[in-house]
């Protein structure tokens, strides 16, 4: 039974220190509000999985919450590099982190394998690439029918996945629209799943092939309007491109980063997200 709850409880009841956790979203519908709640609750020693760790993981790494990062593209999309992650990798600030680096194809396949209940993903990948030499989790497998050598990586099986979605109905069935990324796979691969939504509606009112997660696949839902900011929610509000540009400056300086996090995350509330997207609303 899906439980509608507040974000604080949704996070505290589903995330633990030492967990392997995915906060997924491929540029769109990134669960910023949920990540900020996790930062406020000061979880430690997390293994963070995400295809495109951007601003939220930069923040979590900078706040010293990450033991390990599993990823395929660690950049600030359209802007440049992740400066907190770089500081951790290059200078061990605030402490060193372990890196497990893949390609997008590998990460997407690993989530799909996790959702499929398989131990590993098999795909044609990494041909001639340098990552297999530095990531011992990348192995190969020979097709028993053709003899073709294929890449294999372990399935992603997060303890908990967090996603943001447009809406849920009153039973807690969740609808995602637009660029849906790997969120369905991330939820179905995880032991527990927490969803933040823009709103709750009487009926999802959509078509037969829509991307819907039935309520019985979800552990907790919290209503957080604007909860994807500064990323966007298709049909609700646009991406806050200037916030991504601004992040590049904030993250470049340890002191500025620390004071920004105090003001905008540690001393802030989930309800603050609604005001951050009023100028970006597109309906």
């Amino acid at each position, binding site marked *: 039974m899906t439980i509608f709850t507040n974000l604080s409880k949704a996070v505290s009841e589903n995330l633990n220190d030492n967990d392997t956790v995915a906060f997924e979203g*491929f*540029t*769109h519908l990134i669960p910023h509000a949920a990540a900020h709640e996790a930062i406020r609750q000061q979880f430690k020693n997390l293994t963070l999985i995400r*295809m*495109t760790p951007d601003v939220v993981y930069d923040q979590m790494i900078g706040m010293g919450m990450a033991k390990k990062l599993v*990823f*395929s*593209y*660690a*950049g600030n*999309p*359209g802007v440049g*590099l*992740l400066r907190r*992650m*770089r500081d951790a*990798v*290059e200078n061990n600030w605030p402490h060193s982190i372990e890196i497990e*680096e893949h*390609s*997008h*194809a590998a990460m*997407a*396949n690993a*989530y*799909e394998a996790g959702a499929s209940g398989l131990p590993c993903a098999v*795909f*044609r*990948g*990494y*041909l*001639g*690439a*340098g*990552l297999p030499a*530095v990531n011992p989790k990348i192995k190969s497998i020979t097709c028993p029918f053709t003899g*073709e*050598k294929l890449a294999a990586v372990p399935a992603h099986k997060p303890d908990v996945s967090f996603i943001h979605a447009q809406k849920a109905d009153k039973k807690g069935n969740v609808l995602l629209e*637009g*660029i*849906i*990324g*790997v969120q*369905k*796979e991330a939820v179905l691969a995880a032991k527990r799943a927490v969803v933040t939504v823009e709103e709750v509606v009487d009926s999802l009112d959509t078509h037969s092939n829509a*991307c819907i997660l039935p309520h019985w696949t979800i552990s907790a839902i919290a209503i957080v309007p604007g909860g994807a900011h500064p990323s*966007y929610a*298709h049909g609700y509000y*646009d*991406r*806050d*491109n*200037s916030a*991504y540009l601004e992040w590049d400056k904030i993250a470049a300086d340890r002191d500025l980063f620390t004071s920004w996090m105090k003001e905008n995350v540690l001393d802030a509330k989930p309800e603050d997200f609604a005001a951050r997207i009023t100028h*970006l609303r597109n309906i």
Partner: protein
Amino acid sequence: MTDLKFNSDEMMTIAASRVLENDDVCFVGIGAPSAACNVARLTHSPDITLIYESGTIGTEPNVLPLSIGDGELCDTALTTVSVPEMFRYWLQGGRVTVGFLSAAQLDKFGNINTTVVGDYDHPKVRLPGGGGAPEIASSCQEIFITMKQSKRSFVDKIDFYTSFGHGEGGDHRQRLGITTKGPTLLITDLAIWKPNHESKEFTVVSLHPNVTREQVQNSVGWQVSFADNLETTPEPTTNELNVLRELNERTRIAHTNK
């Protein structure tokens, strides 16, 4: 020919746009490739299928996206699929004719590094990483690369093989069991390059207008080979320049209003 003055960035984007064709299915990298692919669509190849790795297929953005997952790409796409489907069915399935990439570091065999500068475990600069590029480089039927020339990026030896081009040259791709062509074109702000038929080393086949051999050599970290029948790239036409400038202007307005 045009009466308009043009700069080397514009020449690069327009030269890159010309190499695409109307029936291409093109996997678009962000940055320079994205501009070139959309200029192609807005000029000579209106029916080209542009695919971005966020899952948007047949997208027709009115402005250039800031990221590969901008809402504009989804709004104007024929369909938007999940990221696993994108990489499994469409890329791995062999449906993509051209992958259009850029790089932080490139060598003369078209091998690309976007992972680290320096040693992997103790990098001088930790770059974002490969994203979709390792499999784009091996699954697309061929690869075009577009980027500006500089000694920092055109290096004799790349620090990390993010994506495999022609490796050490010759038949290195075939020896690894890769059946696709790999990099077949390199379009820069100064010239157009093609791999030598045998060695697979990138060779300058065409200099952009008013560019000298010395300029090309001085911005590259290896000894450059020039084709015997070296050509001059045709100047941008007035139409090409207008289309590119209008696209850039729409993009600037769209992204500064947010």
